[in-house]
């Protein structure tokens, strides 16, 4: 009797806990400027470091590379660009900020914005894996209403033929 019981794997108890926690993240002053320009003018802006002259992305009070104050030299960037890299999820990913398992409907790409713009990570409208391979030139598609969410004001980047 005892050997039979010994073979039986001991029961293990688990505790499932699923509790969301709310947060209030502030954009702060510098990212707030990106929100304002996107909301009011459908423009993408970044501030330029006075020392290395590079655009700071995510805009901040300091250029981390030069350890100097970044200041308010704001530059309006084009919302057209070239896809540098892209990838798409084969499996749905649990996104803690949605609190849900979502397969991002859109591929995510690194897009170099024109005229010395920054490298922006955002969605591509094109979802067909084959067509994706030759997507190069893209342009932002802005939301018409419900803006006020910074980079979330851009739905995705649409393929443009140039």
């Amino acid at each position: 009797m005892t050997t039979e019981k010994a073979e039986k794997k001991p029961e293990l108890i688990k505790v499932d806990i699923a509790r969301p926690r709310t947060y209030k993240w502030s954009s702060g002053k510098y990212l707030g400027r990106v929100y304002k320009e996107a909301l009011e003018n459908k423009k993408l802006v970044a501030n330029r470091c006075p020392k290395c002259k590079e655009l700071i992305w995510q805009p901040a009070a300091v250029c981390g590379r030069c350890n100097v104050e970044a200041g308010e030299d704001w530059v309006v960037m084009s919302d057209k660009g070239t896809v540098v890299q892209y990838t798409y999820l084969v499996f749905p990913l649990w996104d803690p900020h949605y609190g849900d398992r979502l397969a991002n409907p859109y591929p995510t790409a690194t897009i170099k914005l024109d005229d010395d713009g920054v490298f922006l990570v955002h969605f591509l409208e094109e979802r067909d894996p084959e067509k994706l391979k030759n997507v190069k030139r893209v342009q932002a598609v802005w939301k018409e209403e419900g803006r006020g969410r910074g980079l979330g004001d851009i739905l995705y980047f649409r393929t443009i033929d140039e």
Partner: protein
Amino acid sequence: MAEIMQDRVEKLKDLDVFVYHGKIFIPNTYTAGLTGSRFLIELRDNKRIMATRCQACEQVYVPARSVCKYCYGQLTEWVPVSDVGTVETYTVDGHSNGVQPMDPPIIYGIIKLDGATTGLVHMISGVDFEKLAIGMRVKAVFAEKRVGSILDIKYFAPLA
């Protein structure tokens, strides 16, 4: 499942600053491990509170634990302890924190069960707040429907 709260963004009154009201929600599944599971199964199936004993350090750990904190020995000796014990401290918790198993006020307490050398943190009920006192004798009240959880002990009630 807690309802999924909707995100919203609020612009501060006189500043170009935006506050993103959102959440972080990652479900977790923790294991009680072999020792913890056996303790919880004893609650569920036998309404019995089991402890692990360290002979060398004369410790009787409740809830049962696999390591003695004093000699770092691995504990393998199980002993039952009484479901009656003494209240060492308590609080009448009136604040709501969103993670309590029931609506407050909840009386939390640490109960040193007869035979144990460590106190069990749990809930007390069935007593007027004014009658609560350190040193009070209480007895475990088991839930009718037990599932293998520390909540299989519903609460501790004053000894008659």
